[in-house]
Structure formats: C-alpha cells, structure tokens
C-alpha cells in the first residue's frame, strides 16, 4: 500500500519549517506585518464598498432634491406658460452635461428641457401615480422605484422622476453615471493614499515595538553569551519578564544537573586517582626504604612490601578497568546511582579481597557466599547512607549462580 501524499499538509509543514528557521524577531515581524497588511486590505475593501454605497445614496439624494427644487420653483410658472422652452435655462455652465432634466405635464406635453437633451422623454412617460403610490413616494422619497439607469446620447445616466403634489407636472432628471463614479473614485483614491501613507509608518512602529518587546530576551542572550564556559552558576532571574521565567528556570535546572554531573565525575575521578596513587606512593616509599635499609631484615621486608604494593596496584588497575567498562556500558542504569556504586566499589576494593567481573550483567562476584554476604551487608550500610535501595545493590554482588533473596 502506497503511502498517501498530502500536498496541503506538506506545504503547511514546509511553511512551518521555513518560519521556524527564522529568528523570533523575524518571525514576529513577518507574522505581524502580514496580519496587519491582510487586515488593512480587507478593511480597505470593506470601506471601499461601504463608502461607494453611501456615496451612491448621497448622489441619489442630491438628484432627488434637485428634482423637487425644480418642481417647487417652477410649478407656478408652468401653470402660466404653455410654450416649450419659455423658461430660462438653469443648466448652463459646468453642470450642463452632468445633469439634464425635462419637465412634463401630466398629458404628456414637454414644458421644459435642459440644454443637450432631446424632446424624447428620459424615461418612458407613465400615468401619474395613484394616491397610495404618491403617499409612498412622499414618505420615502429615496425609494429605488423612482430611480433608474438610462442611456442618453450613448452615455449612462442615473435618472429620477418626481411629480408635484397635485400630480400635474413631473420632472425627469438624470445625472451622468461616469462623472459620479469619477468623483467617487477620486475621493476613494485620496482616502486610500492617506491609508497607504500610514502603512509603512505602522510597519516601522511594529518593528520598533517588536524590538523593544524582545529586548529582555536579547539581554538574557547577552548575559548567557558573556558567561564563562566553565561558569555553571545559575542565571539570576531578576529583571526577567514573567514569560521568560520558565525558560530561565529550565536553564538553571540544566546548569544544576550539568554541575552535579561534573561534580560526580570529578569525585569519581578523584576517588579513582586516590585509590591508584596510594599503592603507587607505597611502592615508591618502600623502594626508598629499601635503598636506605639499616639492616638486611629491613631490606627484605621492604622488598616484600614492594611486591605486595605491585600486586595490589595490578589488581586495582584491573578492577578499575572493569568499573570503567561498566560505567561506559551501563550508564543508563542511572548515572547518579552508578557513580555512587562505583565510588562505593572503589572503597570496598581497597579493604576487601573481592574481585569484580563483568561477564554477567552487570557484575557477579566469584567468591564464596559468606564473603558475599559480608560485602552485601557493608554495601547495604553504605546504600542506607546514599539513599539507594539496598535490594538494587544486593543484586550487584552475589555468589556465582545464586539468587538474591
């Protein structure tokens, strides 16, 4: 069965590892800047659409108000004049192309049209609204029912129709849609430019704040960097932020363990050195005693003691090699207990005639049971001092082929 390959999962892992390779400073900057840009983009789009909608409503409202203003200003004049274009043109100037309008009588007669608009109605003429529709229009003058989009002279216009109160005259007014859009685009672009200007300032602010926030970490790093390689003193947690305390505590625990480990090894080495040096010192002194012997008996005794010293050193070195092999191979047994065990063994080796063998795991003694019982008893007393379970130690030295009870 072939292993399934998840592309999405791999991409995520790759991204995660890419991010993990970055420093904490870079990570924070990348994440914060990305999040800020993303939020900024989404909010800009949202604002754009909201403002666009609001602007549309404002433009529509302005169009409706213009229509009503036209009606209220000229209804009286319309009632007095029947001829077309007898009213002054109020759409001269810059707005002549932007806004066009027509004023129609209820029977379909065009009373007035602005410059640049034909006699054709902007939107098809319809019967005046009934009372209910009129009331609804008066209550909601901005209702979408009154608005439409029409084409005039190949341009898209936004149109609005308004009736006077007596439903005798109607105004059809239209505003160029592209100009409305242009006005909105210019306003939106202006707003976006201001926001874009703030984006690098915001990024700079984030970078500075991240740097300030990470300063305690930097200081901690510098403190650890400047600590001498053999200085295993704990790091002082003062002036360390609360969030870094667990890390400092963990570091201090690690330093403590390393220190303890060094201390144990140093003690073991010191003990081993002591046990080796003592018989060597004895051999050397007996040699000098032999050289300065005052009589033949003293010389003979010194020679015998030299021999004893050599035998003892040879045996001790062999036992130390066994202990070292065990130390190397059985270190998982618990480094702490193992080193204490080795230290105890060294002490015992000096005073007893036992031999250790690593043929079986981890040791088996090759001595008669009474001797082993004596050693076990001595080990138990040592172990009681060292807070090691006596049963563990009892298993270490036992008569060949016997079991520990």
């Amino acid at each position, binding site marked *: 069965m072939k292993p399934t390959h998840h592309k999405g999962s791999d991409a995520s892992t790759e991204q995660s590892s890419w991010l993990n390779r970055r420093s904490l400073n870079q990570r924070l900057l990348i994440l914060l800047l990305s999040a800020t840009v993303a939020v900024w983009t989404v909010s800009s789009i949202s604002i754009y659409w909201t403002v666009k909608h609001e602007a549309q409503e404002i433009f529509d409202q302005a169009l409706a108000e213009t229509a009503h203003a036209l009606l209220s200003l000229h209804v009286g004049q319309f009632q007095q004049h029947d001829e077309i274009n007898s009213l002054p043109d109020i759409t001269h100037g810059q707005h002549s192309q932007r806004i066009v309008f027509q004023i129609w009588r209820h029977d379909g007669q065009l009373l007035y049209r602005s410059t640049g608009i034909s006699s054709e109605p902007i939107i098809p003429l319809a019967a005046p609204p009934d009372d209910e529709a009129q009331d609804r229009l008066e209550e909601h003058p901005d209702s979408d029912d009154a608005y439409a989009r029409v084409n005039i002279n190949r341009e898209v216009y936004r149109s609005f129709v308004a009736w006077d109160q007596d439903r005798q005259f109607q105004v059809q007014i239209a505003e160029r849609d592209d100009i409305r859009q242009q006005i909105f685009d210019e306003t939106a672009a202006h707003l976006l430019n201001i926001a874009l200007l703030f984006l690098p300032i915001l990024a700079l602010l984030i970078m500075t704040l991240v740097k300030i926030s990470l300063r305690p970490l930097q200081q901690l790093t510098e403190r650890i960097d400047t600590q001498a390689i053999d200085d295993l003193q704990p790091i002082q947690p003062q002036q360390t932020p609360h969030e870094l305390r667990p890390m400092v505590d963990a570091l201090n625990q690690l330093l403590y363990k390393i220190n303890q480990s060094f201390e144990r090894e*140093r003690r073991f080495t*010191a003990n081993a*050195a*002591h*046990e*080796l*040096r*003592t*018989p*060597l*010192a*004895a*051999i*050397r*002194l*007996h040699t*000098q*005693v032999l050289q*300065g*012997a*005052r009589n033949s008996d*003293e010389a003979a005794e*010194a020679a015998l*003691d030299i021999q*004893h*010293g050599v035998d*003892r050193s040879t045996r001790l070195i062999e036992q130390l090699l066994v202990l070292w092999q065990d130390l190397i191979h059985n270190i998982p047994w618990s480094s702490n207990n193992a080193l204490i065990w080795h230290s105890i063994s060294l002490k015992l080796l*000096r005073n007893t005639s036992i031999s250790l063998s690593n043929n079986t795991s981890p040791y088996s003694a090759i001595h008669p049971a009474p001797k082993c019982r004596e050693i076990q008893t001595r080990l138990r007393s040592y172990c009681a001092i060292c807070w090691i379970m006596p049963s563990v130690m009892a298993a270490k030295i036992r008569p060949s082929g016997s079991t520990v009870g």
Partner: protein
Amino acid sequence: MRVLLVEDDALLAKATRIGLEQAHFVVDHVSCRRQVASYDYVVMLLDLGLPDGDGLGLLQQLRQQKNPLPIIILTARDQVQDRIQGLQAGADDFVIKPYDLHEVVARIGAVTRRASGRADQHIQHGELSLNLDAKTVDYRRQQINLTSREFHVLRFLLDHRGQILTRQQIEDALYPYADEISSNSVEVHIHHLRKKLDKTLIRTVHAMGYTIDRLP
C-alpha cells in the same frame, strides 16, 4: 623529632614510618581520627581520606582550638581546589601522592624551621653549631661525631633553650610511645654529650631535669 602520621592505608603508612625513622624521626602512626590521643609532636602528617571522617575536619578542629601544631597534608587529591581548601583550613604544607620520601623530610624540616622562627637549617649556640639537614655538629671549629639519639637530645635542648626539660619530655621526643625504654637512657645520652662537647653546656636542675641556658 616526634612526628604523628595519620594514614589509613597500612602499606603506605608502614613505608612512610620506616622511611622517616631512617631519617632519624620518631614516628607515631594512627590510622583514623579517633586514635589521635596527643598533639605533642613537632609535626603532623595528615591523610585526608580517613575512615572515620575527612582529615580536613580534624585540621579545622585543631585550628579552632588554636593548636599551632605544624600540619602537612599527604593526599592523593591533586585538584587545585583541594590544595586551596587544605591550606585555607590551616595546613602548613600540601604534598600529593605518590610523594618522595626525601621531599617529605625536606618539607618537615621547612615547616618546623618556620614554626621555630629560624631563617635556615642551622642552630647556633656560642661556639656550638648544628646543621639540621646534614645532621652534623661543630664545636669550637671541630666536627663532633654524635649518634642519632645524641644529636636529637642536643637539638631538643637547644630548641627549648632556657626551659627545664624533664626526663620524660626528652624520652617522648626520642622514642615512639610503643617502644620499651630503659630507665636511664636519657642520663646516658646526656653523659655522652657532656663528654663529647662541654661539661657546662647542659645544666642539671636538681629533681627537675636538664636545660641549656640562653647566652647573654
């Protein structure tokens, strides 16, 4: 000179004891702290790893009791920290095993010389001169042949000039405590010294002991 050796390793202690005896020291050996019964010695040779407690403890205890006994540490602990610790605890010297017998003898000489306030290994008393390294005696520009015991009796008396030393004190300085000593051995040595040097050098104080008077 009486030396106390505190060493738990029997083979090493035996070699040190015999070696020092060959160098004319009187050596008392104990193998643990609780066997130390007296501190009336010219120097103590102290091993640190003792079966009934660290030798440093004994050292600190002595110094706390304001005991000025010169102490040389003989140990296999070779770390600088161990040496600093030993010297700071009050040791006068620190020798690492395996050591040379001649070096130990020289260090004992140096330590006792400092303790007695002498500048070198010579004791001068009028026309009498003792070389402590060569164990020779000159009197009126002539070398005098003395036995080891006679030399040490003379040195002991010169070290305590102006003080009356009892026969027991002289015996203690000459012989290990375990040794059988004949009742008149001190008188015999004094007699030989007077005969080889000068009858007036060593003065007998009736019913008390012997003394060498300070020179005016």
